[in-house]
């Protein structure tokens, strides 16, 4: 079932709403590639901020798969979202090396400061906080990634810095 999203929210997120023409463009870019499904899904998410539900049958048709197969792949991987995230996405590392330098306590302070739980988005849609398990910055923890940019040696002060950055 296609979920219709209020266009206002999507504009606010600066992501285009799902369009079949744009979706087909993405699929065409990967035509002829072996195992094209993951690259297509990554591109869908980069374009629309998530993998829109109506994209599933279109991809299935193009790759000669069933909808259930495509849906199964989308839902298997932690990266793929079925609805858009906030304008900014903060990933906090919850793996062992960051735990050893008090990452969990700091993560709790981040969540409390923005009033969300793991995976949650602030009511104004400005920030989503997600868990991640290792960013490969394990000697410089606690670590995080804000909109794809890495941050190491997080401290309590980083909370204010990030709050400023996400405006």
């Amino acid at each position, binding site marked *: 079932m296609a979920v219709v999203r209020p266009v206002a929210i999507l504009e606010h997120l600066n992501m285009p709403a799902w369009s079949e023409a744009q979706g087909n463009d993405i699929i065409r870019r990967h035509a002829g590639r*072996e*195992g*094209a*499904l*993951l*690259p297509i*899904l*990554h591109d869908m998410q980069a374009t629309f901020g998530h993998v829109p539900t109506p994209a599933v049958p279109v991809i299935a048709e193009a*790759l000669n798969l069933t909808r259930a197969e495509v849906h*199964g*792949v989308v839902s*298997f*991987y*932690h*990266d*793929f979202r079925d609805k858009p995230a906030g304008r900014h996405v903060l990933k906090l590392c919850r*793996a*062992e*090396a*960051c*735990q*050893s*330098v008090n990452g969990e306590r700091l993560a709790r302070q981040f969540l409390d400061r923005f009033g969300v739980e793991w995976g949650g988005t602030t009511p104004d849609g400005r920030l989503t906080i997600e868990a*991640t*398990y*290792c*960013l*490969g*910055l*394990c*000697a*410089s*923890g606690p*670590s995080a*990634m804000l909109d*794809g*940019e*890495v*941050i*190491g*040696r997080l401290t309590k002060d980083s909370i204010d810095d990030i709050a400023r950055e996400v405006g």
Partner: protein
Amino acid sequence: MATRIFVPRDAAARAVGADKVAAAIAEETKRKGIAVEIVRTGSRGLFWLEPLVEVETPAGRIGFGPVAAKDVASLFADGLPAASHALCVGRPEEIPFLKKQTRITFARCGIIDPLSLADYRAHGGMRGLERARSLGPAATVEEVTKSGLRGRGGAGFPTGIKWKTVADTAADRKYIVCNADEGDSGTYADRMIMEGDPFLLIEGMAIAGFAVGATKGYIYIRSEYPDAIRVMERAIVLAEREGLLGAEARFDLEVRVGAGAYVCGEETSLLESLEGKRGQVRAKPPLPAHKGLFGKPTVINNLISLATVPAILADGAEHYAALGMGRSRGTMPIQLAGNSKYGGLFEAAFGLTLGEIVEDIGGGTRTGRPARAVQVGGPLGAYFPRKLFDTPFDYEAFAGLDGLIGHGGVVVFDDTVDMAHQARFALEFCAIESCGKCTPCRIGSVRGTETMDKIIRGERVEANLALVTDLCQTLKFGSLCALGGFTPYPVMSAIRHFPEDFDRPRLKAAAE
């Protein structure tokens, strides 16, 4: 002539401000009319010193670190930075942490411009591929076998034997797959090579392709590594332009990006993922070497395994095999992580003891408190107490203690660690990342987490510990892959070596 200034672009350096430092240096030197050329490099792997800025002098490079953007004005106050500056660490090669290493795989990392093929060649690159071509495919495989190189992804399987199986399997198409999923907490060696010396991996994969008769290679990189993905893709384009890849070289290379599933580091799950499917583990046999990617014979190796091959070919198998202990030959990039005073990449011959690594090299903890537990080999690795600090870094020694060296991650915890929480986390991680194929792994891990919660709350501790122990037995013997099969290592080692943490009055913790 412009003086070259080296500033790392490694993600761990960028994470602590290297880009701002590079920008500040560009601005300050321009303002003062000091002629410099800023070269962005990989990291030397001395992360407590990052951003580590190096300045070229007639006597070699001199390092300054950790440099913040606000330090740049004082660094360039009187022209080029002087050795008298408080941040000067002297010649990097003389810093004990680097001086004590045997850098083979990481020989160039942090030194060269990662995207300059000229630099790569000038520092010994491409000699391995040239020697392989002069030896021929069969002798190349033989050389890898003789070196004693074992898989650096965790299982420690002899790389040469894997290659020989693929070489001996006839097929119209074969693949080389580089496992750059690097999901283990505490590890970053793959990432450092991709960001700091990407042509090394390209050369290693080209040698593998030549040796086994494969014409196509994939590098499967986890999505958590956007920097590595960018550098690797760029390096492939440059290598194609020079004819090192492509039709002429009869070897094509492509980057594929994972999607946040730890289990996709398991080789068969990774192949499923590359084929565009859910990353569920396949039953073996068939081995990937016989029926791998799209059913074709496939070499799947960890990135470090592949990146070590060029040096083995260039300098000869004997040279590499002369290092190490027992059946662990050559060097291992040990990755000191977590609460370590001197956290970083330490490449050394096998055989150092865990205590030497944690205390002598790592300098104990960053917090200054005593190191109490060390997890070796990622989330499926055992926790070691101080009394096992004499364990040598060697595949068999760790396996003998119900542990593993895995991909070489060493995560240090101080005495504030609560091992019951760590045991709980191991089970929770298994539950989060299970591919869902086996019942013990999918359901048992959830039950185990709940049972650990009860133990932490102080409910029927003895009976519940017996339950967790039972469950670990089921996981160990009833799982298809090592995610379920090895989760008992961290859980049981925590219970066995740190029993006092499972029997604390929990009231205090609950009140916090």
